[in-house]
């Protein structure tokens, strides 16, 4: 018997004798070990052979190596199979089962933020909703006064699905139309849901949450929006924070505003983290009559206001003094971040 055949036979036996995946991977290490592995011993021998024999022997070794790898793979698959043959009592009553004790854990900061938002608005009679994350182009754009080909659509960095006219909604405003279509009036909705946009940097994630407020009734005024806004800003950020409305333009509201609140770091005096004492919270406005019509309501009777702000954004604005250099950490499931001290 040649040396390679010898090695093959010996190794085959070892492989078949390995009864667990751990044993098998240990064995693999031993066989191919550079230091004193059996395979290596053979390779070392090549140099001691007369040069005319080297090629044949080398070929033999290579074949042996291939065969060993195949045997290892085969045994591994067998063991994977065996793993599922082992008798195991899935029904064992817990009073007798041994269990593992787990360390403390907590809710994700975004869950805590979402709950807080939900609760603040529920005091004002706003009902929590969670509308679709994937939606048709109609709900994400067209019904929101952004017809096909309108330049305003470009601002949303939208993900499209391969199905025609379907998107990952780039905002929670699709919920405005879904809610109005239910036809239950008056409407006070807070739609907290996932969105997606084609952008990623330290302040943007491809996946993010927004909360969308919608109030539809008769004779709704901008001053009502200011009231709800005041309640939210004071409840969420603190009574000492002030806000301002800046004129803006969105397709689905008219008039439209952007809302700034005073910076929590410098108390509105101006610093590195804000713009002259103000931090941008998000957009709001009086629902555009075309949107009310798209929601199948009579825009001559009903009007209202809407706003849509980022959950991560309000979370980050409140935690600005703490370390949150990169907002993407929220989506990385890193236990060092999630298991922080209380």
């Amino acid at each position, binding site marked *: 018997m040649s040396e390679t055949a010898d090695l093959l036979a010996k190794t085959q036996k070892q492989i078949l004798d390995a009864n667990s995946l751990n044993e098998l991977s240990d064995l693999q290490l031993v066989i191919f070990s550079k230091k004193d592995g059996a395979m290596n011993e053979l390779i070392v021998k090549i140099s001691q052979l007369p040069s005319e024999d080297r090629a044949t022997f080398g070929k033999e070794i290579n074949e042996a190596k291939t065969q060993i790898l195949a045997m290892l793979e085969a045994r591994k698959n067998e063991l994977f199979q065996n793993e599922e043959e082992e008798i195991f009592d899935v029904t*064992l009553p817990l009073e007798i089962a041994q269990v*593992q004790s787990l360390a*403390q854990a907590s809710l994700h900061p975004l869950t805590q933020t979402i709950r807080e938002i939900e609760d603040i608005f529920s005091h004002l009679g706003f009902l929590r909703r969670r509308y679709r994350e994937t939606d048709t182009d109609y709900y994400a754009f067209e019904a929101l006064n952004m017809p096909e*080909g309108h330049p305003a659509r470009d601002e949303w960095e939208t993900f499209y699905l391969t199905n025609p006219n379907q998107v990952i909604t780039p905002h929670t405003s699709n919920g405005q139309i879904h809610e109005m279509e239910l036809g239950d009036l*008056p409407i006070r909705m807070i739609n907290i849901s996932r969105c997606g946009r084609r952008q990623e940097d330290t302040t943007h994630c*491809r996946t993010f949450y927004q909360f969308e407020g919608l109030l539809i009734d008769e004779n709704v005024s*901008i001053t009502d929006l200011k009231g709800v806004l005041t309640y939210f800003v004071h409840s969420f950020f603190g009574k000492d924070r002030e806000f301002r409305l*800046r004129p803006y333009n969105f397709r689905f509201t008219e008039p439209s505003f952007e809302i700034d609140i005073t910076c929590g770091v410098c108390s509105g005096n101006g610093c590195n983290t804000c713009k002259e004492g103000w931090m941008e919270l998000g957009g709001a406005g009086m629902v555009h009559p075309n949107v009310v019509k798209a929601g199948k309501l009579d825009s001559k009777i009903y009007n209202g206001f809407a706003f849509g702000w980022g959950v991560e954004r309000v979370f980050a604005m409140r935690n600005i003094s703490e370390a949150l250099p990169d907002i993407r950490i929220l989506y990385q*499931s890193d236990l*060092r971040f999630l298991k922080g001290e209380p």
Partner: protein
Amino acid sequence: MNLTVPHIWLKDFLETKISPPELARKLSLYGPTVESLEEIDNNVVYHIEVTPNRTDLMSIEGVARETAAILNREKNQAKFKPLIVSDKIKPAKTELPLNIECENRSLMPQMMAVIMDDIQVLQSPKDLKTRLELTGSRPLANVIDISNFVRIALGHPLHIFDYDSIKGNLMRTRESRKGEVIETLDGTTREIPAGSIIIEDSERIIDLCGIMGGKNSEVTQNTKRVVVLVPLYESSRIRKTFRSLNHATDSALIYEKGIDPTLTRRAFMETVNLLEKLAGGKVASKEFSWFMEPVKGASVKLSLTQLESVLNENIPGEKVTHYLESLGMKVTGNQDVYHVTPPSWRKEDIKIPEDIIEEIARLHGLGELKITMPGGRLPEAIIEPNFQFERIIENHLASFGLSECYSESATSLANCSYLSLAIKDLVHIENPLIAERSVMRPNLLCNLLPAVSNNLSRFEDVAVFEKERTFKAVGNALPVEIMSLTCILAAQEADKIFYTLRGIGESLLSALLIGNYSLTKSQNPKPYLMKNKTCDLKTADGTVLLSVGVLKTSVAEKFGIHSPTVIMEAEVETLTTRATKLRKLPLMLNHPSVVEDLSFIVPFQTQVGDLKRLAEFELRTQCPLGKIMMKDLYDTLELRSKKQKGITLSVSYQTYDKTPNPQTVTKARETIIEKLQNTFQAQIRSI
């Protein structure tokens, strides 16, 4: 869009004593937002964010006009000085030949052009250079600077060609065909998207309209004669072209959003005027031009009642008129209904009463409006209870030591294939940002398992959960979105963590007050779970509430996980729709029960929980309040050699009215022994 406005340039159009910081603050509060105020070489510049509906603010003149309206909202603090241009160009002494043609007027609905001779290409004067530099545009030579200067001052793009480079005295505007190319001014050769607007001479394309001119006809040091072209283009085509080239120039963005048509003549006259003044140019052709039908001044009706209702404030009629007139609008009408006609530069923007209300609201001051709480009725709809039950789920899992995770909605095809998930169910993203996130996750494990793997490099045990949507394709219909729950435990001992997670699952059901479920080995385990180590918690009708299973080692390895890993999965709605808020109140009995231990020898493969369930069922046929606890499980060498194991059940006999008598106990015991014998080949060992 953004516009950089140097204070000195603004002052060319505006008389005011207001300081730049105050001016910036007022603009932000009552008009376009000033993103920042910058000082460059003792000059102040404003960085202004222009919203897409206000292309009229994409010019220094436009910003000056708006600033004047804002500064004069209460008392006169500023005077707007619009640029005055002459009506007509000087007649040419000699006319140079040029044919301007247009295949289809909708491509270029309006334009003015002229040839100018005797051009001297020089440096621009200092004033002009400074203004351009402050806007961030690099001065090159007078002719080129003038076209930029006029565009920024008035907001109308234009192009100046070298007349002698144009072949065959022809400028023909047409739609581009597939496969045509142009080398643009910046030296880049671009393939022109089909359907773009281009200008060609008798031999080649010389302008990619609205985006950038052609290199072959650019103005150089040697230019002596030029063609000035001030055109309007079909916005949707410009948009398509720059979108597909992914090259948005300032001109393209302005064209896309639309330009006040009355600006064309003013921009043209100012360009000719500056070329005469600063480059010695002389008009050398007739004026080439064609114009659109002027848009009729459609007026918008504004009801003062509606205004008062939206603003919750009564603004006197003369104030309303003052605000609107300061923005260039014509106001007629009386009492309640005003007819408001927007100026040419706001025609596209002011179309409905709400547009007018916005103008009044902002000039009046959004900050000055009252703060009220919405009145009216509260919604009658009922709060969806799901959200409350979801809170219970989240709280429960976290308090049992599972850290809550959020991962992205999209995942990779590879992750799906590692889990052997059906390809046909996948929802694909047409334009993913990165290839590793090209499908919507069909399962929360897709993104959680990689996270578990990462965490295992730092932690010995990993216990996590996530609750969010998963997606399933349904042909061309919208994907089904399923609110899903996945818990993962990874630690050293597979059996131990299996029972731990199953226990957490069972206690979760009891927290949701879901009773009456059964626990059985899965008939149809997921392809990534070991079939011998997977169980389902099911309702009486067979709906799976939760399933718990050990991840196949072969799958775990693909995710780089080398610890035993147990997974619990559920569809959240299955849980929340069965959850209840009201707990059944227990009976408090005062009579003691009879308790005894029963020991059995059973075949090794017996699923003891099934046995216990049957025993309890039989017990309750005799003793309705009977209970069974598992007390011991043992195997000895002897038992093992016979492929058997031993169990001890602690049986508690109880009925509603009294402690069961010995006959009842005996009968119950015998029934249990008999049924266990028949069903599980359990031999009674001792009582």
